[in-house]
């Protein structure tokens, strides 16, 4: 089973045998890949009960819960990595979530769709309507994405919070793209962070 491209990047850079918390783990695809491929001790947090059921049925340890409220339950430094893939933009307070991730994990992977991708810009500029694109396929009134963010916005937040970037990967569809003008050219970004 092949992983979503951003998850494949994360899976490729998680250290063998480490402890991982996957926040917004969905049906546990990344956790299962990490467990089976890298001997990772993976735990998950997921808001949707059907996804939790699917993940637990795969033998994974997943808790039904909400990243905005339930991350506070995890002790400091209890994981090597805290992972937040395509979930940041759905949270009430992404800045506080980032703080929690780096409190719980020594490192954090964060991936999100880039709202400054040229297609999104064009759609808004010429159409004058909230963009509906491949990565943002849902209309504004029913999207779960309540805090749209661009790569440059994210970098600015990291700077004000004094968070160090250990790695950054950018995606166009399934392909990695260069960091040059990523805020314009990348549909999707993956960051590896530490305090």
């Amino acid at each position, binding site marked *: 089973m092949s992983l979503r491209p951003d998850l494949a990047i994360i899976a490729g850079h998680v250290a063998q045998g480490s402890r991982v918390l996957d926040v917004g783990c969905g049906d546990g695809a990344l956790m299962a890949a990490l467990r089976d491929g890298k001997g990772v001790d993976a735990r998950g947090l997921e808001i949707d009960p059907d996804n939790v059921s699917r993940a*637990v049925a795969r033998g994974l340890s997943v808790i039904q819960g909400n990243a905005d409220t339930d991350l506070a339950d995890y002790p400091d430094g209890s994981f090597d990595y805290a992972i937040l893939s395509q979930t940041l933009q759905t949270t009430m307070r992404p800045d506080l979530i980032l703080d929690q991730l780096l409190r719980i994990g020594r490192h954090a992977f964060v991936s999100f769709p880039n709202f400054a991708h040229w297609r999104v810009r064009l759609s808004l500029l010429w159409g004058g309507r909230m963009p509906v694109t491949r990565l943002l396929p849902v209309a504004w009134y029913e999207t779960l994405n309540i805090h749209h963010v661009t790569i440059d916005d994210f970098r600015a937040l990291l700077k004000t919070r004094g968070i160090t970037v250990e790695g950054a990967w950018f995606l166009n569809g399934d392909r990695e793209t260069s960091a040059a003008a990523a805020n314009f050219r990348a549909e999707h970004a993956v960051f590896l962070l530490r305090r």
Partner: protein
Amino acid sequence: MPDDIRYGLNRHVSLPGPLPLDGGGRLSPVEIGYETYGTLNADKSNAILICHALTGDQHVASIHPSTGKPGWWTRMIGPGLPVDPARHFIVCANVLGSCMGSSGPAAIDPACLMAYGMRFPVITIRDMVRAQALLLDHLGVERLHAVVGGSMGGMQALSWPATFPDRVDAVLAIASTARHSAQNIAFHEVGRQAIMADPKWRGGDYYADADPPSAGLAVARMAAHITYLSEAGLTEKFGRKLQGRDAKTFGFDADFQVESYLRHQGISFTDRFDANSYLYITRAMDYFDLAEEHNGHLANAFKPSHARFCLISFDTDWLYPTAESRAIVHALNAAGAPVSFVELKSPFGHDAFLLEAPEMNRIADGFLRAGENR
């Protein structure tokens, strides 16, 4: 193993003990009624202990000898189900204090050759678990692949890794709690007072002339039964419908279907359950506070254990609501234990864990199998 009289349905054993009790004192002998299903494998790694709830018993997947009804958890235990005698060696024992063959107030006190009555010592959930451990010693089971229970069975399941951290690999607790709340205690107290207010109770010494306080026990069961159902479930099932009549009688007969239903639940319960056992087991549940047993920190209860945990709650369960399961999850996270948790939807309240719940089965199956494929 098929010829071994320790294994099979309707088993009973009298173990010498003595079993030291949380309330002080020692119990000897320790009588245990139990059943086993399936076969213990060569490396003794497939044993699953099923823990029953307040009024349950060891007949988890076999015909009940006095009611003739199927086992109480045939939706979870059986061929092709999450707990499967083809793969697992399944043990279910009547809890200490109960009345289906295990030591309890209705059992004979060897000191005076009469039923214990209220001379039976007050016991705790942990005492029940220690008695189960004695039984497992007798059965040659050193380590449990899993301990599984709902409601009070879940309390025992949670108490297992705290009491015997090296004897259990996985804990599945459904619709349960790590402590009894004031509301839980309050409902139990109503039931106990109903029993003790029945003139036939006579300080618990009613065994000799076989005239038990059935009216009090029936009221206790009626009050408790309400807590096992949801308001929406009651409304859907009964609403304000009248029982076998077209109009109210302006009397105190069971005009409403819900009254008739509760009366039936209460009366049929007295055919199979001992009133004093009801007092003792509800007391054990009220005393249950797993954190209190570990310096006030629930996480401490789980730290010595390496077990995996899975908790399931139901959204309409107001007896042990989801918040109770979440508190346990919180403590397990703090203890660094591998834990899964999900709140399932059901209209049936607390009783949902005993009913058809495909989602619960899917989760239980995945959780149990995860420990078998390694």
